[in-house]
């Protein structure tokens, strides 16, 4: 019997922990988050240890990631963005490794759960809003009303801008979650065809190989998009529109 394509997203407790009414069990999702953090930390620390002038392959991987995020922060956040670099870099590396480790057979994709991506997005949203109010004070409310518009249009414009602002964490989290979930469901469904079609399964099998390459690309691209949108939101908070 072919496995259900959404079985891979099941969260089950590995180490049940119950505190009062709260279920704080250590699940397979928690395990893969720990693995993500551990693998990325080990790779970054190990590759940076040598610090050779002519980098080894591993060292150039981490140097490329560093340069990518450094350029992203410089181009998109602008002045005063430098001190947020560690946060953006951590975010990018976490999402990237979570996506990529999810491509391993029998692994669990942390970012394929809306609650995980929404928590990340909510932290970013709250932090960016606090930074905005901290930098501009009460003036930050100008975000919700374009400069120079007639005052009576505020009745329409303020709710529209407010909803647009509040929809940011939703779109940020749904995009990552949907991309990962759809990709993994598709992989499982096509893989199911390979078995059921017998000899003719060679056709979906070839397609599956191409799809795997595409999924790897999407895993990296979505981590990039997640980080770049964080940069853009940060830019809005620091400099306003």
């Amino acid at each position, binding site marked *: 019997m072919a496995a259900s394509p959404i079985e891979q997203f099941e969260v089950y407790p590995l180490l049940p922990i119950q505190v009062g009414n709260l279920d704080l069990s250590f699940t397979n999702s928690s395990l893969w988050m720990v693995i993500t953090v551990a693998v990325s930390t080990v790779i970054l620390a190990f590759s940076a240890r040598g610090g050779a002038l002519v980098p080894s392959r591993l060292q150039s991987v981490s140097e490329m990631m560093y340069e990518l995020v450094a350029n992203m922060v410089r181009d998109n956040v602008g002045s005063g963005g430098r001190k947020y670099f560690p946060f953006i870099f951590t975010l990018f590396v976490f999402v990237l490794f979570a996506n990529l480790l999810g491509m391993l057979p029998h692994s669990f994709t942390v970012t394929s759960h809306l609650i995980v991506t929404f928590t990340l997005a909510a932290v970013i949203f709250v932090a960016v809003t606090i930074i905005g109010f901290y930098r501009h004070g009460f003036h930050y409310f100008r975000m919700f009303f374009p400069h120079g518009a007639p005052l009576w249009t505020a009745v*329409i414009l303020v*709710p*529209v*801008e*407010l*909803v*647009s602002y*509040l*929809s*940011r964490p*939703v*779109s940020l989290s*749904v*995009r990552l979650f*949907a*991309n990962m979930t759809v990709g993994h469901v598709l992989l499982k469904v096509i893989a199911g065809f390979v078995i059921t079609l017998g000899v003719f399964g060679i056709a979906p099998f070839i397609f599956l190989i191409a799809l795997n390459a*595409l999924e790897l*690309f*999407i895993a990296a*691209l*979505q981590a990039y*998009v997640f980080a770049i949108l964080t940069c*853009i939101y940060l830019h809005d908070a620091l400099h306003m529109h």
Partner: protein
Amino acid sequence: MGDDSPDREPSLDALRHRLSEAKAKQARGRGAQKGSLERSEGMAAGFRVAVELTAALVVGGGIGYVLDRWLGTQPWLLIVFFMVGAAAGFLTIYRTGQELDARARQRREAEAADEKADGDRKSSGG
């Protein structure tokens, strides 16, 4: 070392030839790769716009629904905020479009500058 010097000139020429050949080959490969990369990026941009529109509608509708439940004014605020959400969605899409346009323009300019620099090097390097 001593017997290296007679064929030094030809080997330098050969090296230059091989270098230009390799460069041309790389450029061809990059062209093909760029096509598929641009397609995937276009897909990502389309997906981004779709999610942004839906998110604004859901947030707008959600606010209307909650306010309605709270104030007991069903279904009026839901309708109003659904429309506000639609407007917010279009506003977000408009801004996303502007941002993507700006980035594409930036990249085109950078590429044009790159090609120009390459051409200059070729004509002066001979």
